[in-house]
């Protein structure tokens, strides 16, 4: 193949990023932007899953928090977009620290169910607190993002902004994975007692990662709000949490840059099956089941297996 496959992929990606808005229809550009938003939220869930072995079924709670805070900040309080987004991230991170501290002492099923409970509670509160969130009627008129005076008012412009952001976040995540804390987290995931005996502060690490996951979810939510300019409770259900979970599961939990593939998959499938109506939700569940039972390594894992087989090992 190519002498440097990584370099080839990188070059192809940059070219694609540059050219796609000229080539794709507005509709598919839109889908691509959703994929970017999914990638950011899914990265958080993927870090928790791949590095800490924690299944987070409540990412939609932080996604919604980020969306509503920025919506409220910009439409009701009249703040600019960036401070609202940051404030949303701070609130989500703070909530994650507060909630995470007790529940991260749980493990396995209990923890996953606690996150599911958290997501469900958030869903109810988003609905009941309609004085804050607008309930099912939602909040509209959210202003578009502006970068140095340049307004991101079209999907094309948004695309040129959001994908470099995605790559930046993935790069930061990759640095984290290949570092001392990353080693400690994977040790904790592989053999917790042995990690403890080597003085790894498991609870502190898990809480920190939970906060990071929440911040990523919140940023994704805020970016979503400023993209579609309208948010309502229907976007922040358990279904959304499952979509965020699917991104790293389909990609392969240990792969950081592979998150892009997972996000593209989760964003594209409903598109390709739009003729079947609500069937795509069934498919998401089935995909999760299939990946877990048949291809636990996700797409990147399967690819690696394939390469090994081809090399005759």
């Amino acid at each position, binding site marked *: 193949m190519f002498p440097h496959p990584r370099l080839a992929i990188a070059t192809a990606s940059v070219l694609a990023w540059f050219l796609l808005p000229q080539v794709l229809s507005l509709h598919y550009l839109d889908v691509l932007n959703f994929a970017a938003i999914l990638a950011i939220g899914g990265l958080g869930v993927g870090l928790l899953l791949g590095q800490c072995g924690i299944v987070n079924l409540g990412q939609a709670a932080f996604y919604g928090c980020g969306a509503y805070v920025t919506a409220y900040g910009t439409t009701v309080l009249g703040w600019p977009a960036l401070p609202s987004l940051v404030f949303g991230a701070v609130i989500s991170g703070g909530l994650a620290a507060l909630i995470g501290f007790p529940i991260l002492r749980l493990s396995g099923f209990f923890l996953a*169910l606690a996150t599911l409970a958290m997501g469900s*509670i958030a869903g109810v509160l988003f609905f009941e607190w309609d004085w804050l969130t607008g309930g099912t009627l939602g909040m509209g008129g959210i202003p578009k993002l502006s970068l140095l005076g340049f307004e991101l008012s079209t999907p094309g412009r948004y695309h040129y902004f959001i994908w470099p952001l995605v790559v930046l976040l993935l790069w930061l995540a990759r640095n984290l994975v290949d570092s001392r804390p990353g080693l400690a987290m994977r040790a904790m995931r592989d053999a917790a007692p042995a990690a403890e005996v080597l003085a790894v502060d498991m609870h502190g690490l898990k809480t920190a990662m939970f906060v990071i996951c929440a911040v990523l979810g919140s940023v994704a939510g805020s970016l979503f709000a400023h993209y579609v300019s309208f948010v309502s409770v229907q976007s922040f259900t358990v279904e959304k949490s499952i979509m965020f979970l699917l991104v790293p599961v389909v990609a392969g939990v240990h792969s950081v840059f592979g998150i892009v593939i997972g996000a593209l998959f989760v964003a594209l499938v409903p598109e390709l099956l739009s003729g079947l109506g609500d069937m795509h939700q*069934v498919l998401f569940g089935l995909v999760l089941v299939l990946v*877990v039972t048949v291809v636990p390594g996700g797409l990147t894992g399967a690819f690696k297996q394939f390469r090994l087989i081809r090399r005759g090992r």
Partner: protein
Amino acid sequence: MQHYTSLLLQAALSGITNGFVYALVGMGLAVIFKGSRIVNAMQGEFAVIGALFTVLALQGGQLPYPVAIIAGIAVGAVSGVAIDIFCVRPMARRNASEEGFLLLTIGLAFALSAAALYFGGRDSHLLPGYGGDGVIEILEATMPVHAVWLIVVSLVVVLALRLFYTKTLLGLSMTAASADPDGATTTGINVSRMRLYTFMLGGGVGAIAGILVTPLISMNYQMGIVLTLKGFAAAIMGGLSNPLGAVVGGVALGLLESLAVIGFPSGYRDVVALSILVVIMIVMPHGLLGRAGRVGG
């Protein structure tokens, strides 16, 4: 004052009624955990499937109500069997991790809930109440006749389960097969088949929960997850492998959530119940999925 006590009583009655529904879901969870050491995150979906199928049999198939009910329970049981054969068995053979089984049951929960959406639509469906749609009066509060039936049937189910697991050979074999698979195999128990029966039983009990609750609050595709979570709270309070304990837990949960939201919108009931779930998991997991102290050595 009089108004307040009647409000209290009404809340208590509806709380107890709901509590028995959670107890039934919790019992199904306990059955499956007891028989397979798997925490079934899709238990609530058995309720949805069973109920919706009964609606279909009744309205679409024009079957008599008792037959439709049996059909619904059967579908729940068959779903359980299908899940064991097509999903659990291959994963168990690969020695999949706990995380893997969790993702599996979550995926199934989601797929089944979406299937319910696809086939049943977004609307809620109702079933007729047993003994008609009348109410009985207790002091200043009222309770649907069906609710009384619900409680009676739940108690019958839990007693039947207790007898089954303690007195019948099959029940004892199913417990043995999961507690000590190797030991059970040497005594001639087919561990794989026992797990199949476990899922069949868990599916059937789950369906019963759904069929019983639908006449009271109607069933829609979204209810599965909340039922699973509340059933889980009930089951943990009772000790996760103990169907009888799930009844105690369920009724306690139902009462707590109803009494806590007197005067508030009913949506907050879920917030209360789910918060209780989290607190229970942290404060009293009953050491079942936690580490039990090792003695001796």
